[in-house]
């Protein structure tokens, strides 16, 4: 899915170099969780 309103973790990380020295294995699932929650929330509005 190619959208400026939805980033995969890899896309997000590329835009956030400040996270490079951080525990990305703990951060990735959390960032992705809310990205996906937002997507589901919005799509549910149209279903």
């Amino acid at each position: 899915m190619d959208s400026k309103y939805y980033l995969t973790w890899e896309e997000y990380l590329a835009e956030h170099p400040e996270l490079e020295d951080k525990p990305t294995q703990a951060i990735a699932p959390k960032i992705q969780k809310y990205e996906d929650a937002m997507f589901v929330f919005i799509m549910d509005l149209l279903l």
Partner: protein
Amino acid sequence: MTDAVTMTNERNQLFRDLFSGKTPKRVPVSNPATQDFAIQYAGLDLAECQWDLTKLEPVYDKFCQDFFTDTYPGGSIRIPSHYQLLGSTPIVMSSSGFMQHPEVVGLLAEEYDEFIASPYDCIVEKVLPRLFTELNGAPGKVAMSLAKAMRAQSDDLAYLGTIRAKMNAKYGYAGMIGALTEAPFDFMADFLRSFKGISGDVRRYPDKVAAACDAVLPLMIKKGTLPNPSMLGYTFIPLHMAPYLRDKDFATLYWPTFKKLVETMASMGQNVQLFVEQDWMRYLDYLYELPENTIMRFEYGDAKLVKEKLGKKHIISGFYPITLLQTGTKQQCIDKAKELLDILAPGGKYWFQADKSVINFEAKGPVAENMSAVLEYVHENGTY
């Protein structure tokens, strides 16, 4: 192990068997009535209970106590709070407290190209501000409305989830989880172009309709994907527009992306339950092409023909006419259940559900008594 845990395990096994094509111990049964029915049945105010969810636990407890079902009878529910916070026009609460879906146009015909280029961007930038008044205005207000609405929905779903967990623990229901998505064509019709709009588009610019369905397919796949696919989860896909299309439009515009959607879900190990709304009898050969063990809950049509054509490959459900619960005697209602059991149960691959949801309850009407009798009958007579 408590009795309820034992029952949950048994019921989980019924559905594991059903979904994997084995004949289960007995026909699994789902109560067709919804939260709306349950609230009225408890004698409470429909609108009030949907706003004040703390009133719902005794509502569900009575509902679960009085009507047999193997699955939690909560269903997928539209909760009013987040719609209100967003200024929703496509989903609104009627004065009697039902959540209704007026005809809306979220996407203009001249926006097709933009939509096709990037459907999610277009949804965020064009469709949502058009359909939800609070998402159209000063950026700060829009942001706060979205944030409040998302938080409210999250809180509401969490609260309903705790009620569900309590009822599952008390009544031993199967531990089902579901994700909701739509056929790409239906998605384009329902909130974006409207019934009237898409009907015109099919004639005027079928290529754009086809391209839009292609473009939105990845979103529909993503939306229908369960976080952890399991034998007890399924993707629920209600089907709307096909019966209103000409055969050739169905073949070129509806079917290709819908088929890809179901095939993709199946290839990811996700069960799929189609709610085959209206009459699809002229499309049975298409449905046959869908992956083995796709669950198909039918509204109208010829149950015998469906069993014959699809019943060996797919899991059949539905057909039980809820209008009969309103108009028939208890014996007539049971006879109908027997008739469907006789047609659909042989060989397995059958799940007892009704042709649609029961949302209305009249205190003086026969629905509750008839429904209870039918659910008990199928429970007791569905053993293989």
